[in-house]
């Protein structure tokens, strides 16, 4: 019987092993939506000084991973893939027997469920859910997929969905799709920042002041994306609707096609997905 199964969401304590950007995004999103307060958030990392920003928000900070696992009901694994073995060792050092009936949620790129389940096999009644989230969770527009492990219960999934849906959209997927999706939704924001910056640079070249150029580039991208999500129309059809005959837009589109932009973007996704699979194989057997 799981102890947090009887707790309401508002009573949960959420922990983060590793306090980096993604962990900050998730914690920040949860608090911004009013689901929990920072006093219910626990984070651990090797160096106290890098957890200062967490502390100043009111979160509980530790250098001992085991303590966070003992206290919390749901624990996010948010370290870099190559750090995981060391982080696990730190957990096991003092606390292995005190950690039971916990839900671990992994956001580590490339580390498979099988590998995670092996790591936690010796822990009593602990379940795993693997996720691939992205940083726009911080502004409530995240895009996350999750894959429950063997022992994960309906309530576990409900908790994870509650968190992820407060921060954007989420989907359950078979594990085989997670690398491809990670490349798209996990890395995609970085690709989009490059595109926004390039649009802004183009605007600045043609005489628009930088601040306005960046704002217009970002708003244009936001609006176009919203059109795709809400209009139900194909991206090609939407593009056609903006391109009047002999007009300014089709001239711009021609420049993008000449530059092979579509292929370069596909290359980026392919490369990121392949790298994700490679990282998973390399770090944990």
């Amino acid at each position, binding site marked *: 019987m799981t102890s947090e199964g009887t707790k309401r969401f508002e009573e949960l304590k959420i922990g983060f092993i590793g306090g980096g950007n993604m962990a900050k995004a998730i914690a920040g999103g949860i608090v911004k939506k009013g689901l929990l307060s920072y006093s219910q958030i626990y984070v651990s990392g090797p160096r106290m000084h890098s957890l200062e920003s967490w502390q100043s928000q009111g979160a509980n900070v530790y250098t001992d991973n085991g303590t966070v696992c003992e206290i919390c009901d749901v624990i996010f694994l948010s370290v870099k893939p190559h750090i995981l073995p060391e982080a696990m060792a730190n957990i096991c050092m003092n606390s292995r027997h005190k950690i039971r009936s916990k839900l671990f949620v992994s956001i580590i790129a*490339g580390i498979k469920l099988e590998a995670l389940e092996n790591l936690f096999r010796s822990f009593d009644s602990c379940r795993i859910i693997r996720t691939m989230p992205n940083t726009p969770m911080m502004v409530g527009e995240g895009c996350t997929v999750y894959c429950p492990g063997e022992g994960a219960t309906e309530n576990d999934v409900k908790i994870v969905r509650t968190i992820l849906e407060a921060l954007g959209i989420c989907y359950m997927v078979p594990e085989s799709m997670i690398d491809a999706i990670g490349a798209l939704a996990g890395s995609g924001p970085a690709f989009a920042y490059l595109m926004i910056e390039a649009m802004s640079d183009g605007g600045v070249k043609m005489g628009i002041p930088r601040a306005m150029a960046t704002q217009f580039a970002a708003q244009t991208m936001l609006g176009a994306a919203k059109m795709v999500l809400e209009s139900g129309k194909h991206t090609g059809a939407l593009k056609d609707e903006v391109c009047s005959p002999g007009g300014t837009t089709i001239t711009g589109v021609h420049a993008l096609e000449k530059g092979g932009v579509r292929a370069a973007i596909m290359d980026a996704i392919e490369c990121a997905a392949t790298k994700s699979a490679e990282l998973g194989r390399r770090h944990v057997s």
Partner: protein
Amino acid sequence: MLKLMKRPHLILSCRTFYVTPKNNCEDEPIERLSCVEEKIGFIGDGNMAKAIFKGIVNKCLIQPNQVNVSSPYIKNLDVWKEMGACVSTDNAEIMEISDVVFLAVKPHILPEAIKNIEKSPHAANIKNKLFLSILAGYKISKLEKMLSCFEGARVVRLMPNTPMMVGAGCTAFCPGHGVTEHDLMIVRAILEATGICHRVPENIINAVGALSGGGPAFVYLMIEALSDGGVRMGMHRAMASKFAAQTVMGAAKMVLETNKHTGQLKDEVCSAGGTTIAGMHELERGRVRGSIMNAVEASAKRADQLGGQ
């Protein structure tokens, strides 16, 4: 505050309120209208006109029956009729009954359309209208000359974009001679009901058009390519497209809301030796930045060509 209202009878029926200026419009505090009482006309019924109409109706800025639209082909106007607008094939009639008139025809059509309106019996009553032009590349001076036959005409040149339809538009505007404070309040109310707006000097409006007017098409291309990449790596199309769009939307919102530089935001996603930086390298190898700059430049130059004759 009262001196800004040139039409006192509107004070009773139109609620106005002060809004702290969002950082998307000018810095000085500006009175905002929460509803527009004027009759709005559209000469031309294309995609952009529809986008503006849908935007202002969805935000309840106006009642649909305040809108009158004209087009040579009455069949095209079914969509407008369904949404509650009044339709006509007579441009002059629409211009006469409207207070605010959107010029939304293709640039090469406008001169003849205006000539025909001038000759019409309605022409004598076309006075004191506010003309809002969305014609790409068409200079204010040219518009003012063309509309000088109508007494009291004022012109504001707009560069809008189609995501106005989903409340996420991006528009630049530039007032011509004699445009009043109340005119500008109406313009801002319409544009802010449908997204963000900025007043700009006319010499950069073509550049803005390349960026925010045509920009959505560039973004659709990028979203489709991201989706293709996802499908290539095994995702189903519907999910790939949805995730591509959501990801890009989230990224754009991060830029707008965090005030961090795009380069810094990119750095925050790229862990050392990770998946994202590997993907970034492909984009740089593919010279995507240069191609996007080329697109904005080519588009702006084409606008100069179209309007500058």
